[in-house]
């Protein structure tokens, strides 16, 4: 047996230090914002270029070393110590997080630009805390630290939902928190079972020790259920639409684009880094079936929503379904698994950019018109050409039409499902694409026609904010043109080759 340790040998060069910076710096910035409330916005905006630089430096190190960058905290190796690890998927998510949070920050200057009052203070502090928590999730190398990171993520995300403090948003936030607590306690239960059975929580050590037995299956089922509740996988999606639709636009963008991906990321870690040796393809069909349910149910409900932000939120429910198609298709090291893995990762990233752009665009439309009723948006394209273009480009990615990141992602996933003989998933993804076309065009077509009565703008958005929205949508499209080497980087640290043929 080739041990995965060979693939995951610790990199001792200074790149490891960057992993620590990616966590310490945003935590420090969040604490500074907490201490100097009046400066919260300036601290957050000043940190943004630093955060982007750290994320891209980590990505560069991962690509250069072509292996997993590891750092042992305090020099203590697992099982006693705690490891931070960055592989291709981590690096991709770190960079995505940095770019989207920076764009949301630029956008939020228009809403939370004043330094007075509780709301701006809360928003900027929570945004930094969210960034820190996401980086912890993407870098954590041990299941218990990942649990703490997941909780930090929830604690930063829930207050963002109820920033307006209205009855509806408070209800949405409470429901979100209760679902999240349900999810995290199930996850922790699984962690306890794993520790009880194998005596370690380090991902690499655990992956060498696991045996297909009752305790392991029980732990895996509990953790998957918990993470699915946090990711709002159908049928645990109930909390998501009111929570994401009720938050301020910049917060909705971050919640929909990144926060749900945090728990999805952990689910991928669990099945592909901790349990790759488990014969799991059949069990994971259940997960994909839930994903299929999410695609159909979310898309159908998105078609029926009277309000733009709710439509976008239901479309998130549907797009999360595509992410879970990754599991049965990429498991087990079959020839099609690389395509499925790449497709799933591209879907996570292109959905993040497209959805952030669409939520921000919806925010601009709502501010300009003073409402977000889809039935009264005829001709808004004349008023806000850049914003509506960004919305349409984001929609292109959701539908999976070329050229866009969503097309590449869904194409790879469908190719893998056809190749593996799991035709039904391909059919559902195709149907989901048609339904997505329906709900995107429901907004875009009337927006591009001439208005019946001249629309009056309450305020016009600044060019910076429109620019941020368009830039996000353009990135979602550009992912569709990703070169071959970019796709190869996503395979870094995928513990597959080492484990083929192990019991």
């Amino acid at each position, binding site marked *: 047996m080739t041990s995965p340790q060979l693939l995951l040998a610790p990199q001792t060069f200074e790149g490891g230090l960057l992993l620590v910076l990616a966590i310490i710096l945003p935590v420090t910035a969040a604490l500074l914002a907490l201490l100097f409330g009046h400066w919260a916005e300036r601290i957050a905006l000043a940190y943004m270029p630093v955060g982007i630089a750290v994320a891209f430096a980590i990505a560069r190190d991962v690509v250069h070393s072509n292996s997993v960058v590891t750092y042992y905290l305090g020099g203590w190796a697992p*099982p006693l110590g705690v490891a931070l690890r960055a592989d291709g998927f981590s690096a991709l998510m770190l960079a995505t997080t940095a770019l989207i949070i920076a764009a949301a920050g630029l956008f939020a200057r228009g*809403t939370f630009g004043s330094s007075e009052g509780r709301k701006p203070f809360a928003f900027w502090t929570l945004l930094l805390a969210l960034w820190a928590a996401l980086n912890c999730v993407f870098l954590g190398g041990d299941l*218990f630290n990942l*649990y*703490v990171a997941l*909780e930090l993520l*929830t*604690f930063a995300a*829930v*207050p963002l939902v*109820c920033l*307006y*403090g*209205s*009855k*509806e*948003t*408070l*209800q*949405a*936030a*409470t*429901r979100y*928190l*209760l679902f999240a*607590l*349900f999810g*995290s*306690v199930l996850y*922790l*239960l699984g*962690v*306890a079972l794993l*520790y*009880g*059975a*194998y*005596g*370690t929580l380090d991902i690499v050590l655990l992956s060498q020790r696991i045996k297909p037995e009752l305790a392991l299956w029980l732990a895996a089922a509990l953790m998957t259920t918990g993470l699915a509740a946090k990711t709002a996988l159908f049928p645990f999606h*109930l909390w998501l*639409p*009111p929570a994401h*639709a*009720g938050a*301020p*636009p910049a917060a909705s963008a971050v919640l929909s684009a990144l926060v749900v991906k945090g728990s999805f990321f952990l689910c991928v870690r669990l099945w592909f880094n901790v349990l790759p040796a488990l014969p799991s393809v059949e069990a994971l069909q259940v997960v994909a079936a839930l994903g299929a349910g999410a695609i159909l149910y979310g898309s159908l409900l998105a078609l029926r929503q009277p*309000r733009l*932000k*709710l439509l976008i939120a239901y479309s998130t429910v549907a797009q999360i379904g595509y992410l879970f198609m990754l599991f049965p298709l990429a498991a087990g090291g079959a020839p099609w698994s690389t395509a499925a893995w790449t497709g799933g990762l591209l879907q996570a990233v292109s959905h993040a950019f497209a959805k952030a752009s669409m939520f921000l665009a919806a*925010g601009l439309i*709502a*501010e300009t*018109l*003073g*409402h*977000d009723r889809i039935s009264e948006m005829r001709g808004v394209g004349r008023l806000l050409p850049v914003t509506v273009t960004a919305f349409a480009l984001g929609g292109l990615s959701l539908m999976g039409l070329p050229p866009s990141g969503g097309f590449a992602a869904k194409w790879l996933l469908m190719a893998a499902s056809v190749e593996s003989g799991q035709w039904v998933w391909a059919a559902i993804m195709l149907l989901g694409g048609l339904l997505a076309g329906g709900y995107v065009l429901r907004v875009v077509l009337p927006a591009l026609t001439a208005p019946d009565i001249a629309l009056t703008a309450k305020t016009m958005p600044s060019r910076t904010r429109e620019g941020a929205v368009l830039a996000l949508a353009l990135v979602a499209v550009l992912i569709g043109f990703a070169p071959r080497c970019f796709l190869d980087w996503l395979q870094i640290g995928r513990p597959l080759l080492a484990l083929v043929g192990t019991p």
Partner: protein
Amino acid sequence: MNAANLAGLCAAVLIGLGLYGLITHPHPLRKILAFNLLGSGLFLLLAVIARRGAAAGLAADPVPQALVITGIVVAFSATALAVSLVLRLFEAANDVSLRAEPPATPSEGASS
């Protein structure tokens, strides 16, 4: 039956009761209490695992004890956040039920 087995069974019962309460009770405060009950069962389970010394064959394994302490801190902050949210909800709506009604009704422009 030795003490560890008895404690393990108690942990299982607490986890089961907590899970049942968390899923079936509609009232948020009861859900929060059930979450804490579940948490207590979970920490007891970790304590039993520590007693078994699974990792190193020691008399008592220190790692699960560290997990319990961290877990208690996290569960405490979660409870505090949940209770304060429920209080705010009560102030805003005079009612804390979370029945699924058509959400986000006329909050004009969703950005007021």
